[in-house]
């Protein structure tokens, strides 16, 4: 009998487990359905993309319309005035920020001093991971972030997030007139700072920039002396090369200017691809990241040059580098890599979000301390009323326009070409 009593225990366990199993399977089905419906929503989203886009555009045109009248009316948007926003934001209590850049954390600190009663929480996420995170959250009906600070990923942010209405463009009416194009109306959103990839050299070794044309890097002088961060793992670097491919006529013209003859293609499609191939033939060395490139040319005396982000010049002292970026290269120096601001779709703390974005923009007069982390050496704030810390102004930078759609569609092909060079 004693034995039997003990055997009862497993029996109970069986029951419990069977129950659990049933619940679990039910739950599995439930999850199935849930996912199906989530997917359904997503595809519905894709289907009504046009609508979303239209809505986005509407918002855009609203802002644009606002610009038109914005000069005359500062008070018309009383709802959006700082005081009104602050009052509402205090009720909301906090702002959730997803940011690719630590600059948002710095701005958050000054913001919380300026506007007590609102807590800003910043999550730092890489741009592509942020897309996944927000997409999955929204598909599951969770709307967590309020503010999005992100870089582009070869146009994917615009195609996959902005057009379907997951990230929403926001530019306050009173600030819009002071914003430089393309970031006022043409680009996917307002960008608070613009960086780009360019060629760096060691200022101890060279008195002046050793390169003035991208084709210089394919000459024997630089054989085995050109570094780049791996475009396979950092899409922003690939964007530069993809832009050269989509603007291959510029590259061909620069070739003629450099060598005095028309470019001869060796089995490639155009001058952009030819450039990549010649870089590899000239012993291009690929390193893991931008910092590795600057370590390579900046840590000790070096005649090598390397591709890195313009904003890295501000890390010169901390890292013991003696590097300088080149801001004038033919045919164009680079393609902009902008740090965009968005409101997230269905932001739970919308007033606070708008207030925080305004703060990071430096508010109406661009004097607010929130702008400081963005206005650094090597990055440009595209506002006409902001004094840049660089020797060269944003308008006089010779950059290719960022064509998100063209990049989005051309990037995989250029990536394939790059992989095949290995």
């Amino acid at each position, binding site marked *: 009998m004693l034995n039997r009593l003990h055997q009862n225990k497993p029996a109970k366990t*069986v029951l419990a487990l069977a129950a659990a199993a049933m*619940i679990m399977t039910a739950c*599995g089905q439930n999850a199935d359905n849930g996912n199906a419906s989530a997917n359904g929503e997503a595809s519905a989203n894709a289907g009504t993309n046009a609508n979303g886009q239209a809505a986005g555009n509407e918002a855009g045109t609203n802002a644009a319309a606002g610009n038109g009248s914005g000069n005359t009316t500062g008070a018309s948007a009383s709802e959006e005035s700082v005081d009104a926003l602050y009052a509402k934001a205090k009720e909301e209590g906090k702002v959730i920020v997803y940011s690719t*850049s630590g600059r948002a954390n710095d701005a958050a600190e000054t913001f919380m001093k300026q506007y007590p009663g609102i807590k800003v929480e910043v999550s730092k996420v890489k741009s592509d*991971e942020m897309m996944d995170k927000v997409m*999955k959250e929204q598909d599951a009906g969770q709307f967590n972030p309020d503010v999005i600070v992100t870089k582009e990923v070869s146009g994917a942010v615009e195609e996959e997030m902005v057009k379907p209405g997951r990230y929403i463009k926001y530019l306050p009416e009173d600030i819009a007139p002071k914003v430089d194009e393309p970031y006022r109306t043409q680009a996917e959103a307002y960008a608070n700072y613009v960086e780009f990839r360019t060629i760096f050299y060691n200022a101890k070794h060279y008195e002046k920039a050793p390169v003035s044309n991208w084709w210089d890097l394919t000459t024997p002088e630089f054989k085995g002396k050109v570094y780049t961060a791996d475009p396979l793992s*950092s899409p922003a670097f690939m964007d530069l090369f993809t832009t050269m491919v989509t603007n291959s006529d510029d590259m061909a013209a620069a070739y003629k200017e450099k060598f005095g003859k028309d470019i001869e293609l060796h089995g490639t499609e155009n001058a952009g691809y030819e450039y990549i191939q010649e870089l590899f033939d000239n012993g291009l060395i690929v390193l*893991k990241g931008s910092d590795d490139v600057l370590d390579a040319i900046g*840590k000790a005396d*070096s005649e090598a040059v390397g591709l890195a982000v313009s904003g890295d010049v501000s890390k010169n002292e901390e890292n013991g580098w003696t590097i300088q970026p080149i801001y004038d290269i033919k045919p164009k120096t680079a393609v902009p890599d902008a740090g965009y601001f968005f409101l997230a779709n269905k932001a739970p703390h919308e007033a606070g979000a708008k207030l925080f974005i305004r703060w990071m923009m430096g508010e109406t007069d661009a004097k607010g301390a929130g702008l400081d982390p963005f206005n650094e050496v090597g990055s440009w704030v595209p506002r006409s009323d902001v004094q840049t810390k660089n020797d060269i102004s944003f308008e006089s930078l010779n950059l290719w326009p960022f064509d998100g759609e063209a990049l989005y569609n051309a990037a995989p092909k250029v990536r394939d070409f790059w992989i095949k060079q290995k």
Partner: protein
Amino acid sequence: MAKVTAPISQRPRWQNIILNRLRNPVHLIGAAALLFLSYMVIWPVLRIAWSTFIWRRQDMRLTGEADPGHFTLYHWIRVLASDMSYSLFYKPLLNSLAVGATVSVLSMAIGCGLAWLVTRTDIPLKRTISFLAVIPYLLPAWILSQAWLTFFKNGKIGGTPGILQSLLHVSMPDWLSYGFVPIVISLSIHDSVFFFLIVGAALSSMNSQLEEAASVAGASRLTILRRIVMPLVLPSILSGFILIFTKAISSYGVPALLGTPVNFYMISTMLYSSMRSRLTTEANVLSLTLMLISMLAIYVNHRAIGRRKSFVTVTGKGSARTLTPLGSWKYPVATLASLGMAMVAVVPLLVLLAQSFMLKEGTYSLSNFTTHYWWGGSDPAINTGEKGAMQNPIFTLALKNSLAIAGIAAIAAAVVGVALGYVVARGRLSWLGRAVDQASFLPYLIPGISLAALYISIFAKPTFFLPALYGTMTLLILITVVKELPFTVKAGSASMLQIGTELEEAAQISGASWLTRFRRILLPLNRKNLVSMFLLVFIGAMKEMELIILLVTPRTETLTTLTFYYAEKGYEQLTNVILMIIIFIVMAVYAAAVKFGKADLTQGIGGQ
């Protein structure tokens, strides 16, 4: 109930069979485990697999044929049989396989060698050696590769020349500086601790009467090693082998740093690239190929172990243990072992520590000493006013979260590991055991980012009795437990294989329920293993970044997400400070585990 109380002899045979099945804990736990794994692992993998056959909107970038939502084989053809395949798949695949196999062999040599010295010989400094053995795993793997570059790099990647090059005035050849060789060495040093712990536990539970008997019968020491020791620890070794193999082929940081300068790509680095370039489906295909390869490896493993009847070394009988005398080799070997380990373990650690106290990196003078990065206030001249790490407003929160996640996840992972290991070991001849074994192995091969992304969609909404876990610590703990399953289940089953069933049977006859048996017999006998599992999962969780970066919300920030922030800003010393804090915590936990968990690997099981 009436049926249960009926005399056994009157029960029909089929009922007996069913009742026996149901009462058998292997089936019970096995069923529960399979349910758990289905939901947490298999279901996500199936979703990944399914996605590779469906066009997505993204694919219109690749080809005009793309028709979103419809079936296609395009992705598989692109990876396996197109003009891209060689560069995109086959070459990286060969590199992955070569690295995986070599790392496994090398870590086996290092790990088993050390384990044997520490558990079976009379070598002095045992405690020191086993303590040092864990340290390389405390460091992030990329630190070891960085250290390698500091010594061996040549002019190719510029910067300050490597130490050997400046001393010897000879340029190191590329093959020694970058690519295959350093990747294999860094990974082996980092991961050999798994072998050390798994095989060490197996060796220390082995009854040395077996060796003595052979010795008496006139077998030479080599014969004993080959014919007795090896077969007994073979399951542990094979487990370790597969574990290290999958860890190596899925590692990213080390091959990225050491491989790119010489265009040495592995599937893992290609996969990362696809992911970052928003070619998600391509990434999914690549990770599925890794999964298929490992499943093949596990199948082979099963064939190897399945043929043998038993590896029982822990029986009810007393087990005396005599140690192999090393004789005159004793001290040279001890010195060599501890010096070698100090080189790879302590030196990088000290360099890191020193750097966290240096105002300017690389300037070795007393005036350059500062505690600013630890607890200094804001100073506009340093890091544009960034405060010391411990002054960071979220430091306390991050520390608390890290400890909670790592602590709870490590305990849960150890218990789950033993329970599932039990199923795998006892049910290794049934489909249930094999299914659990196979499924528990997948998490290493699902890229952390993909798994996390799927968990957002699975856990963002409440599903039946499970609340919405997204945004809570529970989900972070859960995913950590799942991600470490390959190790915990392997370690659990390897040690269960050694525990004879007669101990359990004896208890069962005296009426102990399975839970009692588990608690009173299996857990104590597995104690050392439990503590090893706890320790490694704890370390892994403290270091984990990729897995949780998608799942953290501001409330669930951890120490590693803090380092992510610092690293992006280029604040190297601050990153090092956090790293040192993590390492201190882990060492303290390790010391506590040794002291209170009596998990000293130099003592045999039941030797307290």
